[in-house]
């Protein structure tokens, strides 16, 4: 068949190329997850991966636009990757979605699993029953994502950057880093890790376990309390493929909406040879994005068309071509209307704007909202990663991509829920009790794609990137409260000279007698807020020495309450 139809061979080759490209970029994503960790080098750290782990976020125009609008600034380094993808889309159309996006590839895979042939046939029959003139417009159609995009950009224009919640790469990254990767590592540990120490089997299992552990898991393991939530979001997006093969891409994806707008004016177009077309509508029924109008094969929504060329492959009359210029005079590319109503657009704008106060609301300290002052409903112990900009600027730039969480070797960063207001959902917070902030490490700020965590070096970190300073709870600290020696905090303090000094003090012991005991005292002038003391304090539950926001590099003196 292909001998008589060389165009079919060409199309099949393109489809193979598409699959191969999709797999290659998914493999790149997997590589960036696997090798997106630090490696100790010299006295500091470097990233293990040969490609920047935040690669996909550097080339993301949706996040770039939202962060730029919210922060009212052209993001400083506009990377070449971004321009490359923009150019690619303007020339070839929505190929990012169809050929590159790793979430798109996962959705294609989910579509194959969740929509078996019989479901496709059933849907095709239903679609054929509708008249050719009728426009297919289910409740949630391809236009919804444009409204979503508009709402998000409206919020961003008012300084509330919520783009990252719905960004496909961010959803995939968070779902993988917070849930899937740790779950996999837990499984490996619980199965092979235990079997490796069994009496007889152990001799075979131990090398297997060591190989699997070394090559497929992160050498710096992570665990997150919100894992199930992020797994649910990711799996929910994939599960939507049950309804339509590329439901997320077609109906909801705001990045897809942005690329779609550009794809409508792209140079590579799908053209139909009207003379050959017999209106069988096989192409319309096959299209995974429902881009082709049923009954009018030449009419295609170029903003939905992924240039996957599947329709060309199934056309019985071989009448579909993808080209820059029409191959024959009557090969037409009829654009379909976008069906964005005035009501819809206005509704999206209003909804976005109305959400701004809801996202922003949070109780402030008695001093009121000031530039740079983090809200008080926040505990004093709400900490940001080192190098974080003052809170208002930080929230405008952070796109909740998940990269900083994954790169941190100590699992010190954890996504916020509602402690800092709805606006701050899934932004990074530093939790020293779970993981301390290594003084020599500046990995998180090196992978932040928007500069919400400004670049640091280990030399600058103690002065410019201090997350806070530590203070003792003398009611719980063992020497102070019980008159028994301890000093683990002093032992662990990594600065030289130490920020914790042991001095002999006179206190009441547990029996109420006055005793002399060596007790720790904080030297705030030396403390760098790393949280090693908080992490290692042997007191059960909440640590007796905790890092708080006072003394953080990004905070104004007003925060301390102690005076300038």
């Amino acid at each position, binding site marked *: 068949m292909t001998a008589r139809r060389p165009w079919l061979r060409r199309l099949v080759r393109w489809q193979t190329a598409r699959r191969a490209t999709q797999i290659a970029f998914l493999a790149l994503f997997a590589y960036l997850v696997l090798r997106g960790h630090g*490696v*100790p080098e*010299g*006295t500091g750290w470097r990233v293990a991966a040969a490609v920047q782990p935040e690669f996909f976020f550097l080339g993301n125009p949706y996040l770039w636009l939202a962060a730029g609008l919210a922060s009212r600034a052209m993001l400083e380094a506009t990377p070449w990757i971004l321009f490359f993808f923009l150019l690619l889309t303007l020339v070839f159309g929505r190929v990012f979605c169809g050929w590159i996006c790793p979430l798109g590839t996962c959705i294609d895979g989910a579509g194959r699993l969740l929509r078996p042939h019989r479901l496709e046939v059933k849907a095709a029959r239903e679609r054929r029953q509708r008249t050719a003139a009728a426009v297919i417009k289910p409740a949630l159609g391809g236009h919804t994502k444009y409204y979503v995009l508009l709402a998000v950009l409206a919020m961003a224009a008012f300084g509330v950057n919520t783009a990252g919640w719905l960004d496909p790469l961010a959803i995939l990254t968070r779902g993988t880093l917070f849930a899937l990767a740790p779950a996999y590592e837990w499984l490996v540990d619980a199965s092979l*890790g*235990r079997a490796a*120490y069994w009496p007889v089997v152990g001799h075979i299992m131990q090398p297997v376990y060591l190989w699997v552990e070394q090559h497929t898991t992160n*050498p*710096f393991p992570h665990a997150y309390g919100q894992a199930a939530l992020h797994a649910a979001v990711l799996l929910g997006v994939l599960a939507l493929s049950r309804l339509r093969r590329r439901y997320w891409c077609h109906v909801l994806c705001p990045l897809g909406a942005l690329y779609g707008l550009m794809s409508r004016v792209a140079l590579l177009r799908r053209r139909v040879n009207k003379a050959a077309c017999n209106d069988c509508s096989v192409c319309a029924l096959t299209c995974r994005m429902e881009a082709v109008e049923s009954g009018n094969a030449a009419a295609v929504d170029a903003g939905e068309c992924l240039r996957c060329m599947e329709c060309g492959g199934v056309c019985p009359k071989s009448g579909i071509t993808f080209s820059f210029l029409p191959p024959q005079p009557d090969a037409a590319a009829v654009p379909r209307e976008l069906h964005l109503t005035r009501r819809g657009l206005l509704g999206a704008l209003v909804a976005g704007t109305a959400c701004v106060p809801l996202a922003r609301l949070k109780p402030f300290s008695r001093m009121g909202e000031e530039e740079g002052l983090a809200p008080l409903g926040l505990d004093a112990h709400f900490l940001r990663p080192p190098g974080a900009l003052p809170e208002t600027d930080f929230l405008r730039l952070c796109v909740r991509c998940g990269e900083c969480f994954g790169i941190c*070797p*100590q699992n010190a960063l954890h996504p916020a829920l509602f402690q800092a207001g709805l606006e701050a959902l899934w932004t990074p917070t530093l939790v020293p009790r779970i993981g301390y902030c*290594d003084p*020599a490490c500046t990995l998180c700020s090196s992978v932040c794609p928007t500069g919400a965590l400004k670049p640091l070096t280990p030399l600058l970190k103690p002065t410019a990137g201090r997350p806070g300073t530590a203070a003792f709870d003398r009611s719980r600290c*063992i020497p102070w409260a019980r008159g*028994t*020696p*301890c*000093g*683990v905090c*002093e*032992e*662990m*303090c*990594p*600065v*030289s*000279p*130490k920020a914790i000094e*042991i001095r002999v003090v006179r206190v009441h012991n547990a029996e109420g007698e006055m005793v002399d005991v*060596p007790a720790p005292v904080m030297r705030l002038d030396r403390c760098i807020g790393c949280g090693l003391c908080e992490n*290692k*304090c*042997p007191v*059960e539950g909440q640590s007796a020495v905790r890092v708080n926001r006072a003394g953080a590099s990004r905070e104004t003196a007003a925060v301390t309450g102690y005076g300038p």
Partner: protein
Amino acid sequence: MTCQKKHDRSGRFVTRREFLQRTGAGSAALAAWATVAPLARAAEMPARPADMAVIKGDDPAANVRAAIEAIGGMKQFVKKGDVVVVKPNIGWDRTPEQAANTNPQVVGELVALAFAAGASKVKVFDNTCNNPRACYMRSGIEKAAVDAGATVLPFDAKRCRNVSIPGGEFLKEWPVFVDALECDAYINVPVAKVHGLSKLTLGLKNVMGVIGGNRGQWHQNINVILADFLAVLKPKLTVIDAYRMLMANGPSGGNVADVRLAKTCIATADPVAADARAAALFDMSVESLGFITRAARKGFGTADLSRLKVVEKG
């Protein structure tokens, strides 16, 4: 006085003179042999090995080799087929120049010596204070140990077993890493550092790297617990790495200005004596170090170095 007539076994009459004559020759021969023989043996055999060696030199590995040789060679401690544990201090995310961990060349040399003495397996591990992967890598110990053929293990809390501490005054039991309990030869190789609470961290304190649990609790009576714990785990050989010594802001250090290049190595089978000798390197008296005095009192070793044969070179 007629001479008493005695009869020997055959019934023959034996006079005192005859008796002395018969036995005298034999005794004289015996006496002669008893005098000469030890001298002859001494001429064949080497001198009695030292109880402790303190070696100074530029090459840390050579220092270790010389020290072990002086106290009788590794075969005194490792038999053929033994599973050996070499326990360095890998506790801190520091480079070798910062002297917070054992010198990697010292560790590598000990592993090599253990294999040369016939060990079937040599395990190296530590329950670190900072990030385990970072500590193992940045200290250089993982590479040095693996290059010498050791099995480097991560510490695993799942592989700890609760053991009782016989004679423990403050603590009665504690979880200990199984591989440390079940080895044939436990070689303790700490690095010499100052410590805020215990004043010095040497051999006795190094055992805190083979235990699990909430280790910070040990600080509540550190001297008593460290001494008592020798009843659970007494190293066959203690090698104190004083090639670089951390003189201030220990045990974590971080500033090379706090490091003294002492180029010294102490090796002995007596864990208490090792710490006592190392204390002298810091100009600290043994009496001021509670863990040493208590351990000596309980009989785990001696702090009185005059009772030991000590070889000092360099």
